[in-house]
């Protein structure tokens, strides 16, 4: 009996969450995939019509803009956040005074909701209210900083706000990583008279590779599912210049009664996520098997 329990209790305990995930994650992915192959409008319909929704999606200039924005925003957001996060972490790691307070200050933006971040930056970047107005008020009449209303530059304002929000979090990740590096090696290097920047670039940073990977995965999924930041900061505008796939999907599903389009765009978003996560999982699993 105890043997039977030992063998089956873990399965029984895991079963409910397994079933829930099976239905509510994979079941609904399958449902979305199905709907993306239909001509659903207001309500879902289930007669398969082929790839018409995907053809419409790829013919839509707005979707093009949304995907381009995702790549611009994603790449800059991840790279800049990681770079700034790493730099702040390294500077904080110099056994400075008041580190606790500084760390909290840098980490604090993460505590804000993205809606708050977006709204605050909307005011800061608004040419009539924020930075531009202030500097003009100081007498620099020719100063211009109107990225928020310039359709070619607006996506970079989303990057600015996103980086402001996320780099403190990345800093915390890296700081933990820096602290976990074996101090003996660093001391040995110092004894050998190796300059500090070489210690970082040749010893500490390479030994933090797993942290880089975690930071990358966390930031990239934040980038792909970004929605509230854009809604609060630009509302997708000017025009639809700062649309992201998530805001496109929302507009199709909830404003336009075009569920088929929404489902097909959701499938493409999922494929983008898979393109990032699957190699990661693969490398993780392979490492375990070795």
């Amino acid at each position: 009996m105890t043997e039977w329990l030992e063998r089956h209790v873990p399965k029984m305990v895991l079963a409910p969450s397994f079933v829930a995930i099976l239905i509510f994650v994979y079941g609904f992915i399958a449902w979305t995939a199905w709907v993306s192959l239909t001509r659903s409008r207001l309500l879902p319909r289930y007669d398969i019509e082929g790839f018409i929704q995907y053809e419409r999606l790829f013919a839509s200039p707005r979707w093009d803009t949304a995907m381009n924005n995702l790549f611009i925003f994603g790449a800059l957001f991840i790279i800049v956040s990681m770079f700034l996060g790493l730099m702040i972490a390294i500077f904080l790691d110099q056994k400075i005074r008041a580190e606790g307070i500084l760390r909290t200050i840098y980490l604090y933006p993460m505590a804000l909701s993205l809606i708050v971040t977006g709204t605050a930056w909307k005011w800061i970047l608004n040419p009539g209210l924020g930075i531009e107005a202030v500097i003009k008020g100081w007498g620099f009449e020719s100063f211009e900083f109107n990225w928020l209303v310039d359709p070619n530059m607006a996506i970079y304002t989303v990057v600015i706000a996103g980086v402001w929000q996320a780099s403190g979090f990345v800093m915390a990740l890296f700081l933990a990583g820096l602290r976990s590096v074996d101090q003996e090696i660093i001391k040995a290097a110092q004894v050998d008279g190796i300059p500090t920047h070489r210690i970082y670039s040749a010893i500490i940073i390479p030994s933090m590779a797993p942290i880089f990977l975690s930071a990358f995965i966390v930031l990239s999924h934040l980038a792909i599912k970004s929605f509230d930041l854009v809604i609060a900061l630009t509302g997708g505008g000017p025009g639809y210049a700062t649309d992201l796939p998530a805001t496109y999907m929302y507009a199709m599903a909830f404003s336009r009664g075009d569920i088929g389009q929404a489902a097909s765009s959701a499938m493409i978003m999922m494929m983008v996520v898979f393109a990032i996560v699957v190699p990661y999982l693969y490398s993780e699993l392979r490492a375990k098997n070795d």
Partner: protein
Amino acid sequence: MKTTSVFAAGAAVSFFAASFAVAGPEAEVLHYWTSGGEAKSVAVLQEEFKANGGTWTDMPVAGGGGDAAMTALRARVLSGNAPTAVQLKGPAIQEWYEEGVLADISAVAEAQGWADVLPDSIAGHMKCDGTWCAAPVNVHRVDWIWANAEILAANGIDMPTTWDEFNAAAEKLQAAGIIPLAHGGQAWQDATVFETVVLGIGGPDFFKRALVDLDTEALTSDTMVAAFDQMRTLRGYVDDSFSGRDWNLATAMVMNGEAAFQIMGDWAKGEFLAAGKVPGKDFICASTPGDGYLYNVDSFAMFEVGGADKQAGQALLAELIMGQKFQSVFNLNKGSIPARTDVALDGFDSCAITSAEDMASTSEAGSLLPSYAHGMALRGASAGAITDVVTAHFNSDMSSEDAVQMLADAVANSM
């Protein structure tokens, strides 16, 4: 002890008796009128319904300009438990009808003679395949242009009656250091301006061919190019920080004398009136340059419900919505005009009276047209596709020819 239980039983009996007694017309109403004046307006209907012995279950869903309410509706319909009446408008009514979930209220409509008191084109929206399935509440006019009276007088400008006159006036104002056009850079506001420009430049027939029938020839015509050219010109009359501005802030700019004109539906009037401004004296309302009338009609669509109580409630609701009293009181609160043409307009302001007169005359002339920007003319996907092009053009340096080509492609792709 015993007396109490007898007492309790008696109370229970009388409670049940009471609840049987009130069983009568029932209605659950899904709407998104949740802000100040709107909530007050819908409360009028609620009270009237109760006064007629009905039980009203209010289901207000705020947010997203009705998007949240539509999501709630979708969930209710999919679970087979539709509300009695839902605030829906335009072709969305027919879209829901095609899903097979709307009720037929022709009995009420015919008994009350709706066909005789509604303008034909508005009555058309309330019918599904020849039967009545919705009741109209109000008519908002979309093609209004609002102006600050003081600025116009100081600069010697009359209300423009053509777009060329408007451009001339705008140049003059710009030279005087006043923002000619207060505008908020949100897609729907861009679309609102665009449709008034199309109506003004192309005329009612062109408007109908292009933005109601989606005729490709009209969409790619030179007239449409001219409309986009005018949009480009208007872009020059808007201040730099217009992106994302809400419409009521743009209205405030006109009120405060920062800007001269705003193109916006007659809900803007509510902002002026709330600030104590007087029509004709502090601000001027006029139709945008050109002929025609673009309407935005709110209505309640009636959903298929089971049970005699609910059906009775539905019939009573339909009757009250179209009643003279409700149409008058509701629209006084909301700033729109009654959909019925036979309601006395005592107490309405001069803008509303102009609106009602124009509605009657344009209905005669066949130029009473549905607003595309407010979801009256087209289904969501097509209207959205057009708005995408309009807003992309307005917010970039795209040429009018490219915009017209994009427009035709987007419309074809939205089918």
